[in-house]
């Protein structure tokens, strides 16, 4: 059996005295795209933070690419696993140019050929070279999120943690970013662990999902459950219904008649 990209076993996470996540266990296969879905307060973002090492108080076992993860930050880990944050307006340093932001991971890890790498990466995330020396306030939300994705990819990690990467964006921009993430995954063979509350986004991006409620995983289901509402847990079904899923009904009312790609 191959080693999973991400593996959690009986993980409990607490902030101070309150335990926010209990007994979470799941495996994400190499190259898979896995979603953690749930509503606010379900603990889904906390799980992601714990894997990234940003929530230090946890017990249990977390391993990434077969290597068990300690509680602090370590460099080897950062070369394997990176994260894209939710709010593109808060995830870029307001006083640093895009070039500086993208250079930093390379400088920390002592990697050479930085200038070329930055230019390549800008192209890979669909940003024109003109953006290289701009400050974040000169960019739109979608452009900033592209920069954040580029920053995460600079160290060529194999696992990406995505924390609601499009929830702060407009629908049309969301589509562009989702397409970009999908393309990057295909081209670079990345593994995604994505946190979201948006089930249609899961349907587009992911292979499997874990539904979380009040700090626990209530169900792990394949993406096809979204097609027919085949969820076992009552909470999952409730969430599915509230998100506009109606199994067995006619196709979505507002689905455009036909869409020719030509």
């Amino acid at each position, binding site marked *: 059996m191959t080693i999973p990209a991400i593996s959690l076993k009986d993980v409990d996470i607490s902030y101070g005295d309150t335990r926010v996540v209990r007994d979470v266990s799941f495996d994400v296969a190499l190259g898979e795209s896995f979603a953690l879905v749930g*509503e*606010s307060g379900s603990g889904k973002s906390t799980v992601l933070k714990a894997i990234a090492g940003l929530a230090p108080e946890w017990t249990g076992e977390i391993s990434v690419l077969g290597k068990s993860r300690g509680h602090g930050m370590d460099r080897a880990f950062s070369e394997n696993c990176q994260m894209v944050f939710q709010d593109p307006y808060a995830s870029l340093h307001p006083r640093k140019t895009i070039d500086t932001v993208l250079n930093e991971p390379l400088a920390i890890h002592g990697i050479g050929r930085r200038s070329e790498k930055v230019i390549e990466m800008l192209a890979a995330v*669909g*940003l*024109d070279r*003109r*953006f290289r020396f701009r400050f974040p306030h000169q960019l*739109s*939300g*979608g*452009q900033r999120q*592209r920069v954040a994705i580029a920053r995460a990819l600079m160290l060529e990690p194999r696992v990406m943690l995505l924390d609601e990467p499009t929830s702060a964006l*407009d*629908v*049309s*921009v*969301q*589509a*562009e970013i*989702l*397409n970009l993430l*999908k393309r990057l995954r295909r081209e670079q063979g990345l593994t995604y662990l994505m946190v979201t*509350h*948006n*089930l*249609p*986004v899961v*349907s*587009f*991006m992911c292979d499997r999902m874990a539904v979380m409620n009040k700090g626990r995983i209530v169900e792990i289901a394949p993406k096809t459950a*979204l*097609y027919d509402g085949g969820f076992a847990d009552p909470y999952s079904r*409730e*969430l599915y219904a*509230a*998100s*506009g*899923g109606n199994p067995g009904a006619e*196709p*979505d*009312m*507002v*689905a*455009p*008649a036909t*869409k020719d*790609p030509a």
Partner: protein
Amino acid sequence: MNETPLLEVEDLRVSFATPNGPVEVVKGLSFTLGREERLGIVGESGSGKSMTGRSILRLIRAPGKQTAKTLRFDGLDLMAQGNRQMRKVRGARISMIMQDPKFSLNPVMTIGEQIAEALRVHERLPRRDLRARVIEMLTSVRINDPGRVARMYPHEVSGGMGQRVMIAMMLIPRPQLLIADEPTSALDVSVQAQVLDLIEELVTGNGMGLILISHDLNLVARYCDRILVMNGGEVVEACAAQRLHEASHPYTRGLLAAQPRMEETRDELPVLDRSGGAGT
């Protein structure tokens, strides 16, 4: 009397002065809203939809400026009203619900006091009646144990309940028109539906008009009779809600197509064609 529409807007313009000259964010908007009609205004950020909502209440602050050929509410010319008269209209006859209840509620007043305050500004009532009205209103927004909630402070309630409190506050003076600007985008999906159902029920039950402003096409289609789609400060499409899927304007169609679906089979989402090609 009931023949006149509730709200008439003609050639509404909002512009902001910048060092590089004025920038128009709403460019000549015209629409009418019938009594008991529910109108949805949809658009992405920067489309001018929120500014439209604010300008109906004349809430555009300097350096913004608004002009309109007609801005008539129930026969009253809003553009001709002074600040004092506008204050009587706001809240009492036209109410507005904002996006995030956390920023709209006063953190150091109990919920009951705030709702009572909203009523007291517009009506003189004895203390006991005031309290009864507050409890009645909280019950009507489906808050269990309204007596206890009335004594709570805003930080003690959840987002969904906070938004229901906001709705209670906005509806207690019995306005004729409710403007809801992204009333649920800060809430979870399961709570969203409850809050919108509640708004719908109260609006139809009291014979009020509703303007629902949102970025979410599906949501607006579900809760409104008519939809205006805005882009770049202009209405690009106006249609009945149930005919949204027949929308003809490329922008509207683009927006609809760009949304991932629950039964997604497409390998790539179609994106809006943006000239410039720099990527957003």
